[in-house]
């Protein structure tokens, strides 16, 4: 299994500002992902964080709005840029360690934009 530490756990931000969310894993992992869960909704994959290269974004998500870094195999950041109230969501980091294992999720970051 993998233990994931996600920071901050929650934040209230002013519109127009940016927030960077950190995801730290206790072991090296093959794949890291970022998801968004809007209020009362399911989870949607934002992007795959690639180690040493640009993230791979899903349809509807762009790098300018959600820049992602992954400098090594245990750490990634997601930035929510130029925030608006519509960005109020839970953002979750997920990792996958290999073919015969499962996907693990962090505790999430609850973001409120006012």
């Amino acid at each position, binding site marked *: 299994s993998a233990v994931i530490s996600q920071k901050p756990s929650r934040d209230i931000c002013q519109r127009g500002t940016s927030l960077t969310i950190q995801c730290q894993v206790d072991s090296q992992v093959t794949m890291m992902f970022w998801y968004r869960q809007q209020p009362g909704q399911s989870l949607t994959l934002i992007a795959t964080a690639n180690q040493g290269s640009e993230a791979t974004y899903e349809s509807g998500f762009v790098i300018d709005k959600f820049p992602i870094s992954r400098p090594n195999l245990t750490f990634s950041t997601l930035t929510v840029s130029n925030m608006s109230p519509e960005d109020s969501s839970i953002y979750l980091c997920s990792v*996958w360690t290999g073919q015969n294992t499962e*996907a693990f999720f962090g505790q999430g970051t609850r973001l409120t934009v006012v």
Partner: protein
Amino acid sequence: ELKVEQNPLFLSMQEGKNYTIYCNYSTTSDRLYWYRQDPGKSLESLFVLLSNGAVKQEGRLMASLDTKARLSTLHITAAVHDLSATYFCAVDKGSGALTFGGGTRLMVKP
């Protein structure tokens, strides 16, 4: 594009009753997950189903996977109030990237 449909979206049950949640998906995958989410919390992994015909049970919950029909079920036996939560199925698109169903909000009434 992979689509995952879950039904029902809302389920109100009496304690002691049985019910099944269904998860249909549109393209081939051999890895399916079931998660539980309590209000304000992250996801709790319930089951990982890795092959056709896989069946797993934990307490009052049993999950199965039919990859040919592209269908998974989560069966609840003799529901208790503590099972009240939202349940999600998620299909692996490849290498751990998941597409989630819409979720089933389960309410078990005492």
